């Protein structure tokens, strides 16, 4: 049978996928099952419902297995499913941007992988196959990416794959400093404490003399100790989350297929492939916390990921030392991602705007509290402490201005901005598909403009904030020759 004949046959999901959902259900009911065996009594609430809880997913799985088929014909992949309502989705192979393989622990035991195919044409332009056998999944991925590349010789194999970065468990020290680490920690804390809030246990605690005793200890000590404990718990959870998600993180470049592969995950493994032709640049994330510790993160600017959603942008390096991040960024885009000296600053007007915009609103706090204190019913100490707010705002403004910069290299546009969520965006000049120049009334008076490069990838728009109008036009003209010149006065 020739390759073409094989392609045109309808293929099915792997039969083992039938086990995935029931196993999931069994795991969910595990506490109940354990209770059943250990305590010897299943409680009074009806047993049949729990069997239903296993039977329904099995039935759904059977229907899904029986009704889902896919095939690759000459130029497109076709996916059909549904028994009564038929759904047929097709995607042109040359529009396939990304292929992601995911395997939860259950998938891994069964040697299965979920295949997600991103076409980037619309928001829901993802075809999902849950699940294929690992070999079949890898083969499908190779087929898809080969076709997407089209001009490249097939079957390059993974022999000439070049490893760009390999995970170092020591990087976990950066985890508590990332916002995602914090979110994970807060979510976990919420999940852990949620059931106790408002329960009898909490009420009993509230009644107890403990509260009385706590009151006797100096309040600051309690606050500080509580804060430290919370910080420790949050850090630990952040680190655990980081390790689970990024264990074994490897970024490789497949030279023959012109593809980047990202593989990661301790329990659930995830491997994403990005076609080099779809790559439009990289974002170096340097949020304040990471920056202070000398770390950063790297994500890809690529077409084919769901628009404006962070979880779907492809990570190229998780939180790691900045030197590693910059080295990988350089290897991915093929040139130095801008040393601090290469950036042009935006000038005194932009600096003034940073300070005004940060400090003016922040002044409200001490002024309002001061007025309240003058009226007599608020303590002056509070107003005094609130003076720190505009001071912090000024420090923020200073940092925001210091980081604000733009630069142009032979093939990329570099934009550095932000403090708390600081980032350096490195965008291919050939990936720019338009310019927006936006001026508020105040910007116009200051002779400044916000220049936005639009692109089909990543955030869709990359903004150079508060740059002098003539500089902005010169920059746009130099970055994409032959476009804006014709409209210059």
């Amino acid at each position, binding site marked *: 049978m020739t390759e073409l004949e094989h392609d045109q046959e309808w293929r099915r999901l792997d039969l083992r996928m039938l086990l995935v959902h029931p196993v999931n259900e069994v795991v969910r009911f595990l506490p109940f099952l354990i209770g059943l065996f250990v305590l010897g009594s299943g409680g009074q609430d009806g047993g049949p419902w729990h069997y239903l809880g296993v039977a329904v997913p099995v039935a759904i799985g059977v229907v899904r297995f029986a009704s889902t088929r896919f095939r690759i014909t000459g130029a497109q992949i076709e996916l059909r499913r549904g028994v009564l309502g038929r759904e047929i989705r097709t995607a042109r192979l040359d529009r396939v941007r990304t292929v992601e393989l995911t395997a939860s622990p259950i998938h891994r035991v069964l040697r299965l992988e979920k295949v997600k195919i991103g076409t980037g044409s619309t928001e829901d332009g993802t075809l999902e196959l849950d699940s294929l056998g690992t070999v079949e999944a890898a083969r499908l991925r190779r087929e898809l990416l080969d076709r997407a590349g089209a001009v490249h010789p097939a079957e390059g194999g993974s022999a000439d794959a070049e490893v760009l970065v390999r995970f170092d468990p020591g990087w976990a020290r950066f985890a508590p400093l990332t916002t995602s680490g914090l979110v994970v920690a807060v979510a976990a804390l919420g999940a852990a404490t949620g059931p106790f809030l408002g329960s009898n246990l909490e009420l009993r605690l509230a009644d107890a003399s403990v509260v009385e005793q706590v009151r006797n200890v100096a309040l600051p000590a309690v606050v500080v100790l509580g804060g430290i404990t919370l910080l420790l718990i949050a850090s630990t959870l952040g680190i655990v989350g980081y390790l689970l998600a990024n264990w074994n993180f490897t970024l490789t470049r497949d030279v023959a297929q012109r593809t980047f592969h990202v593989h990661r995950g301790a329990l659930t493994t995830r491997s994403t492939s990005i076609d080099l032709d779809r790559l439009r640049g990289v974002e170096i994330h340097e949020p304040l916390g990471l920056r202070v510790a000398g770390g950063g993160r790297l994500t890809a600017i690529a077409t084919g990921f769901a628009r404006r959603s962070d979880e779907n942008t492809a990570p190229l390096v998780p939180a790691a030392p900045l030197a590693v991040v910059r080295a990988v960024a350089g290897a991915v885009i093929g040139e130095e991602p801008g040393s601090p000296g290469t950036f042009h600053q935006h000038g005194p007007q932009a600096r003034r705007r940073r300070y005004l915009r940060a400090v003016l609103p922040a002044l409200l706090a001490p002024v309002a509290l001061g007025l309240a204190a003058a009226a007599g019913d608020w303590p002056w100490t509070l107003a005094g402490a609130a003076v720190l707010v505009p001071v912090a705002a000024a420090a923020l403004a200073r940092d925001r201005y210091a980081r604000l910069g733009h630069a142009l290299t032979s093939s990329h546009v570099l934009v550095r901005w932000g403090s708390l969520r600081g980032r350096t965006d490195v965008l291919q000049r050939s990936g720019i598909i338009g310019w*927006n120049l936006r001026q508020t009334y105040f910007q*116009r008076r200051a002779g400044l403009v916000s220049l936005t490069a639009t692109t089909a990838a990543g955030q869709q728009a990359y903004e150079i904030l508060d740059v002098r109008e003539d500089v902005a036009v*010169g*920059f746009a003209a130099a970055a994409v020759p032959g476009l804006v010149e014709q409209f210059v006065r």
Partner: protein
Amino acid sequence: MVEPTGVLRDPANLVSTRAPYLWRLGALTRSLVLGAGAGLAELLWDVDVPLWLWAGYAAAALGYVTVMPQFRYRVHRWETTGTAVYTQSGWLTRERRIAPMSRVQTVDFEQSAVARAFGLASVTVTTASAAGPLRIDDLDVAVAQQLVDELTRRAEAEHGDAT
């Protein structure tokens, strides 16, 4: 270092001379609806809106209805060349957008019922970026139709998937 080359000029073409009338009608409707809503609230819930507030609102609304359309008419401009589309919009905040013809994906023609009565239509040019639609509001229908034809023809002449 990039040499400053100068600043952008305004796009060459104004929109239809009838557009300000449409905008004025819209502004008037919005002002009246808001005023009527406040009046209704005053009756229903017995709120006492002081007379000076009414007077202030009336003055502001009058200013908005008279000044805004003229102002906008001078700002809203557009231009196409062999290689690019250039638009300018807004009135207090001004936004200029430039897209190369080779990246144009769709050219849309839109006409609301009211715009139809005025003989006006809007043209929207999109690129592959979610951040970049170029909208030209309220052109003469004939001008809009001609523009759509022309842009569609030119965009078709370009190759590639425009990303």
